[in-house]
């Protein structure tokens, strides 16, 4: 337990440091946040156009879909801020030889790497998601209680952890291909699947995003719960997150051992 606390507090110190580093590049940061907001607004416009021609998607109406979109963005925002450092492994650490320096610390390298994340732009996702979620809850006449807010925040963090674990697994490829960015990003984009109800997909993709890469637990099942459509499956999310992290860290350690024996 003490070790867990030590690791978490170290992680927070790293985050604090990376926040300071971000603030040095204030302009970059503000421009980044704005461009991210514009990207999100474009996808919202796209949805709006879709709903000009149809009443609902897979039984979900416009407000419900937007709620799902908002919930997704909250998780993406958190995970982006906390875990996007994983994309840097190839170009930033392995290629430059900086990885050695991280391996020499008395801390698990994953803590160093994800703690060094600096994707501050994802705050745009978080804010947009939060605003959209609250507006849609009101529109859908779902009472916005303190309990509901806590629940949403809790399960959004769990969702972010799920995305983080999946990222961790995909980041393994960067041990061997410096330019793994594109590879990870393409899988990362699969979270966009969860911006729509999974029932619109065929069986293969449904299995993929529920069981293999359980993105469905990030936003889809939680949103079902908030809408009162399925109130129980949401409680599987934390279990999924824990199991996934367990698997991710084990696989990552295996890859690290392999990497250390080949001599990069």
């Amino acid at each position, binding site marked *: 337990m003490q070790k867990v606390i*030590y690791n978490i507090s*170290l992680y927070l110190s790293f985050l604090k440091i990376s926040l300071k580093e971000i603030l*040095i590049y204030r302009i970059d940061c503000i421009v980044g946040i704005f461009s991210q907001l514009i990207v999100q607004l474009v996808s919202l416009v796209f949805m709006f156009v879709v709903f000009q021609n149809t009443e609902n998607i897979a039984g979900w109406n416009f407000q419900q879909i937007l709620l799902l979109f908002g919930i997704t963005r909250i998780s993406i925002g958190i995970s982006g801020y906390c875990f996007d450092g994983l994309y840097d492994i190839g170009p930033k650490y392995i290629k430059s030889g900086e990885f050695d*320096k991280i*391996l020499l610390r*008395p801390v698990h390298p994953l803590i160093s790497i994800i703690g060094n994340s600096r994707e501050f732009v994802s705050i745009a996702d978080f804010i947009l998601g939060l605003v959209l979620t609250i507006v849609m809850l009101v529109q859908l006449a779902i009472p916005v209680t303190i309990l509901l807010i806590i629940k949403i925040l809790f399960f959004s963090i769990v969702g972010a952890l799920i995305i983080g674990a999946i990222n961790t697994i995909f980041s393994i490829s960067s041990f061997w291909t410096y330019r793994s960015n594109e590879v990870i990003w393409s899988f990362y984009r699969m979270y966009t699947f969860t911006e729509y109800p999974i029932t619109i997909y065929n069986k293969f993709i449904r299995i993929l995003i529920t069981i293999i890469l359980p993105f469905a637990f990030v936003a889809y099942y939680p949103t079902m719960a908030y809408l009162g459509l399925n109130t129980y499956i949401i409680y599987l999310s934390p279990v999924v997150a824990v199991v996934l992290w367990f698997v991710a860290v084990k696989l990552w350690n295996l890859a690290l051992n392999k990497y*250390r024996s080949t*001599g990069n």
Partner: protein
Amino acid sequence: MAIIEVKNLVKTYKIIEKEEGLIGYFKNLVKPKYKEFTAVNNVNFSIEKGELVGYIGENGAGKSTTIKMLTGLLTPTSGNVIVNGIIPNQKRIENNKNIGAVFGQKTQLWWDLPVIESFRLIKKMYKIPENEYRKNLKKFTELLDLEELLEKQVKNLSLGQKMRCEIAATFLHDPKIVYLDEPTIGLDVFVKEKIRKFIKDINREKKTTVILTTHDLKDIEDVCDRIILLDKGQIIYDGEKQKFKDTYGRYVIAELIVNNIKDNIILNNAEILEQNDNKLKIKFSHDETTIVKIMDEISKFCNIEDIHMKEAELEDILKEIYKGVHTNVKNNDATSKNAI
């Protein structure tokens, strides 16, 4: 028990053999062909707490590879490494708590932040007690002259300034062992001297074990008591630095200012290294002749105005060893070193 124990250590790299052309490229993709290269070949040594060891050898001799295995960055192909009672490769993080390491010019400091912020983070990572941290920070600041650097961003420091901060960061948590792989590369003489003095001071006070590799053999002359000489992945000498010099450096280099050279100078027991109109550089061994005899010989050919002598330095001796002058180094010492 020795603090570092290395037995039959081997590291073999697998290198993908590249084939030419598009077909070769696809062949490689499907079934790559590997070539093996042994960078460290059956190395044995043991180091006691508090020793200052120079780990030297030509470029590509396998120094960095060895140090990477000692720190657990690299898994040995075979053989054993035990550092401070643990196997670094298996308990890397545990091992990291006891060691500090510098690899060339790579910095462990946070690029965009003031130096002191990096120090604070290191304090947290290594759980350095507050009073220890304060004490070390104060002392290191004095010894390495960091006062004005602490508040500056790392990216704005010159190489020499950065390296001084780097060295301080490496010793901050009172590591039992410090590995320094080419720490003085590219630095000017003053910074080098500061760093050497720092290493010696800390070693004296805290009995820190230091393993140092460097291109600048003055570092070794100044800092180390013992040298381990590596050649093509194998140890060819391991022992006291002074004994090494006594054994292989029993010669003197003399520079003479002369004039009126009459003839081609031919000397019986000395080797002429350099000669021009008024300068003569010679090398001779105490075993074979004396300076008086030599001067007597030389004066037959010219007038001697001045003479300046120096003992053989590590650098001179090593150059000769690499050239193959002392072919006996390998044979004699590879066997005797185990007794040391």
